[in-house]
Every structure is written in structure tokens, then in C-alpha cells.
């Protein structure tokens, strides 16, 4: 248990950090994706920039509403695919034509045509690893501590609640005002969450 306690796994119920008064932000809790989207638009119009929404499933159009840039994952995966392709050519040429050449049935030691299947397979293999590891890295996962989990109703975000956080690092952040704003927008449970 000691090791896990030190890891501060917040969903295990021991997440609150002691001492200094640092806050993650204010989190509000909405009934439907439509309510959440309306809240995001209003809050953005009011000039807040450090927002985060937490939802049980991806919501169409939320990135545009939050002003999020496109994910760079495609570029990462393309790089991995090219790496896989190069590795496959290098592997087949080096083993078959350079390191230990063996003539089989008078065929060339290296040719592109019979190398295509493995070139394709290794491109796909490295792309898949690039997509998964790239996604996890961009999302900074695994991340077993996050102040979000200090919100008492954080579990709703993986069930049927649509949460909106206005983070304390936002230049316009004023906990009382932000709380009032989210409540007026229809939040059922608004809370100032510790970092």
C-alpha cells in the first residue's frame, strides 16, 4: 500500500494535497452535451481561455467551440510509416543481398517486387505503434495524478455527466465569479477544486 499511497492515486480517495492554497480551478457539471456546448461558447465569449471539458464520449464540434488546434498525430504516424518502410527495405536487402547472399533459383538477391509485402506490413506495424504511443504521449498518459480527480463528482465524466473546468491559471480567474457564471449556465454542482 505504501508505494501506491506515495503515487497519490487520486481516484483511490487520497488525492487532496495539503497545505498551500493552490487551486486547479472551478468545475461545473451539466446534464447534456448541448448544455455543455452552450456553456463553453458563453464562457469563451466572456473571455476565458483556459478551459477543459470532460465528457463520457467525444462530442462533435467541441474542439471548434473550445478553439482547439488540430491534433498533430497524423504527422507522427506518417513519420513512423516511412521509418517502417525504410526498415523493411534495409532488412531485406541487408540480410539477403549483403550480409549472407544465397542464390535461390537464379533469382536476384534483392528486388522490390518480392519485398513489397514486408514493406507494407512493417509500415503498418510502425504506424500502429506511432498512433498509440503518439496518442498516449500527446495526452500525457499514463498520468495517475491529476487535480481533476479532486472534484467530488469526477466519476460522472465517465458515466453520464458533462463537466466544464475553468482553470485557475486563466488570467480572468476569480473563483466566486466563475462559480456564479457556471451556476447561471445550468451547472448542477459547482465546486472550487484543489490542485
Amino acid at each position: 500500500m505504501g508505494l501506491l499511497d506515495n503515487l497519490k492515486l487520486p481516484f483511490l480517495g487520497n488525492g487532496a494535497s495539503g497545505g498551500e492554497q493552490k487551486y486547479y480551478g472551478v468545475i461545473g457539471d451539466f446534464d447534456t452535451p448541448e448544455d455543455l456546448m452552450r456553456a463553453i461558447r458563453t464562457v469563451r465569449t466572456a473571455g476565458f481561455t483556459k478551459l477543459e471539458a470532460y465528457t463520457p464520449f467525444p462530442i462533435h464540434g467541441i474542439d471548434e467551440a473550445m478553439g482547439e488546434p488540430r491534433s498533430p498525430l497524423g504527422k507522427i504516424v506518417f513519420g513512423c510509416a516511412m521509418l517502417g518502410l525504410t526498415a523493411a527495405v534495409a532488412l531485406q536487402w541487408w540480410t539477403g543481398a549483403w550480409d549472407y547472399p544465397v542464390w535461390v533459383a537464379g533469382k536476384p538477391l534483392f528486388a522490390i517486387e518480392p519485398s513489397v509485402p514486408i514493406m507494407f506490413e512493417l509500415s503498418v506495424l510502425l504506424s500502429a505503434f506511432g498512433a498509440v504511443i503518439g496518442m498516449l504521449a500527446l495526452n500525457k498518459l499514463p498520468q495517475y495524478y491529476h487535480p481533476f480527480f479532486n472534484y467530488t463528482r469526477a466519476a460522472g465524466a465517465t458515466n453520464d455527466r458533462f463537466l466544464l473546468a475553468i482553470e485557475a491559471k486563466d488570467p480572468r480567474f476569480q473563483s466566486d465569479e466563475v462559480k456564479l457564471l457556471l451556476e447561471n449556465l445550468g451547472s448542477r454542482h459547482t465546486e472550487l477544486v484543489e490542485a
Partner: protein
Amino acid sequence: MADIALDPRLELNPPLVTGGQTYADVTEKISAITENPPPKIWWAAFGVSLLLAMVLFACLGYLVTTGIGVWGNNVPVGWAWDITNFVWWIGIGHAGTLISAILFLFRQKWRTSINRAAEAMTLFAVACAAIYPVFHTGRPWRAVYWLFPMPNEYLHLWQNFRSPLMWDVFAISTYGTVSALFWYVGLIPDLATLRDRAKTRIRQMIFGIMSFGWRGSARQWKHYELAYLILAGISTPLVLSVHSIVSFDFATSVLPGWHTTIFPPYFVAGAIFSGFAMVVTLMTLARWMYKLENLITLHHLENMCKVMLATGMIVGFAYGTEFFIAWYSANPFERFAFQNRLFGPYWWAYWTMVSCNVIAPQFFWFKRFRRSIPVMFVLSIFINIGMWFERFVIIVTSLHRDFLPSSWGYFNPTIIDIGTFVGTIGLFMTLFLLFLRFLPAIAISEVKGVLHSQLQSERGGH
């Protein structure tokens, strides 16, 4: 409600989540399966499956300690049940990837209730398939040096990359790895759901660690959705390549009956056909065992029956084409190979194959049969059998009578052949039942996404 029932869109697109469920109902229904003790029927099925899996391990142990002579393979039939079973299992896996990747790219929303279980089925089928090439080497602990380009002290040689068997090694291992990654990425948000619902500390810890601390933030979903789309995009050509490469094992040889350019598309269609049959077999059972009628609706099952009908027709057409080409080639060896299939000593295998694969799916022309659970269950079993016989017919009837009548033979399986095959079915069912018991068998977050768009269109949003 009345005006909704008259809406012509509903006639074309019946609701995929029925019973007026909310997001919380979906979470509850699917998570509860993993949280509550399993029904008695689960224990019965698990017991039988585990017993059969033990038979597999006993047969493999006997094979490793004795030698591959315990199988019935012998000259002239050097490949028999081992490769038949291998191709059969790999083919079954293809439906999982088709559902998770190809139907995703085509925006077929009905895939969401069945994709998780179908992907799990893919993984377990690939695991069963891999047993055969690994153990047919006789010394599986050395197989890694023979199959993969590993620097080693045994051989002082590299693999021949001009051989389709090497392409197969790369295709199957890539396919297994990518399927596992795709499946796990899909699981992450649902594991987080299980973590947040956990009643005991141990469940909280296990699912907390497995879900990597997923929070479901909009930024996380952004990268996640793109990763999912990319995985679907690369899995689509991958799944088509895998069975094409499996068919190259045969097609690039110079044996009459194998040396055929039609093989790649014919094998891919057959793989999807057999895979959907296995999905229907498993889904009808899982749906009945866990009462999932509102999530896996008759509409889902009917769509799968349509896929079986279409791919069954493609397979039937390929059988006909093979015969036409054998006749049209005017090659006496080619013509003999095909006559021998129909009327030779293995005629019974050929006609079993035709009955199960070409005749059985014709019932699916009728809506009544497409929407009847007992009919589709029985027909799916027939198709599973028929597709096993297809591989057996292609492999064994082409080998047992080659160019010299003096070396003709007849293949008989041994008890170890049978035990190994039945054993892999046991292993497959054991793994599948464990999956149903411990992991969310339906993609919770994806079903909620479908439910959301369904609620929007019911409100007339679109």
C-alpha cells in the same frame, strides 16, 4: 411516439439502442456484467471450454515430447489439419477487423454494439491460429530463430524473404499486434468507467492502472479520436493484405489446385464470410446469456446475416470461377485436380463444403430467417463447418494425388490431430468467456455516442 413510428427515416435506420435508455443505463447495463457474479450458464460453458483447452495443452505437450509424427501428415499430404486450422482461425479473425475498421470508415453506426466483442474474437482467433505454425516446427522454442530474422548461433543464416511463408510471418504478427493495439485503445475510456464505478479498492487499482488515468477531457478525446481513425485506416488495407498473403502460401506454388490468381480475393471473401458466421454464433449466445437485447438488436444481427449472404455468394462465385478456369486452361493436370475434388476420394468433403457455404446462406434472402435467432445460429454453425471444409478441400485434395499416380495417398487424421483442433476451440471459448466476464464486452463510450445522435434526431435536431 406515433409520429416517430411513421417517420420514413426510421424505416431505413431503425434505432440501434432500444428500450428508451439513458447514458447511465448504458453504463449500468454493460458494467454490471463485469461487476456481478456470472450466471450459472457462464460457469457451465466455462467448465466445458476449460476442459477442452486442457485437451489442447495435453496434445501439444505430447507433440513436443514425441515429435510431429503424432499428426497424420505424411507424404504426399505434408500439410493437412495444421494448416487447415491455421487458415480457418485466421479467417475467423477477419470479421473482427472488418467490423471495427472497415465499417467504421464507412460510418456504419450499427457496428458499435458488436465491435468490441468482435475485436476480442479476432485476438483470440489469431492466438489459436498462431499455435499451428509455431508447433508444426516441432521445437517451438527454436521457432523464433526460424520465423523471425533474429541473429543467432544455430543457423548462421538469414530467412529467405522471397518466400511467401516469410511474408506470412510478418503479416500474421503485424495483424495480431495491430489488432491488440486497436482493441486496447478502444478499451481505455471504458476501463476508466469501470475504475470510477469500482466498489472495491482492488478493482479501483486494477482498472485505474489499466486505463492509464484517462479523464475523458476534450483534448484527450481529440487525440484519441484521431488515433482511432488512423488505426481504422491502416487496419483496413492490413486485413485485406493478411488473407491475401495467406493465400500466397498456396498461390505462388506450382501445384494444380493451388496455383491460381483468384486466390487473394477469394480467400479474403471467405475469411469475412467465416468470421461473420463466428460473430453471429458468439453474439447470439452472449446476447442470450446476458440479456443484451436492447443493445445487440435484431437489426444488428440482420445486418450480419446480409453480410454473410453477400460474402457467401462471392465465395460460391469463386468456386465456379475456379472450375471454369481449370477447364479453360486445357491443362490436363489442372482439370484432373478439379475433377478429383468433385468425384475423387474426398468427394464428401467437397459436397459438405458446397452445401454449407453455398446452399445454407441462401436462406438469408428471406427477412423471416434473417430475423430469427435459432435459424441464424444454426446456419452460422453450418457456415463455420463449411469454411473449415473449404480449407481442407483446397489443401488436402490438391496434395493427395499429385503428378505421379504411384505416389498417390489418402490422409487420415490421428486422435492428436482431432484433439488439437477441438482443443483450440476450447481455448478460444475459454478466452472469450473470460473476456465477457471481466471486460466491458460492448464499447460503452461508443454506444453513448450513437445514443446521443439518436436522441438528437428524435428531437428533430438534424
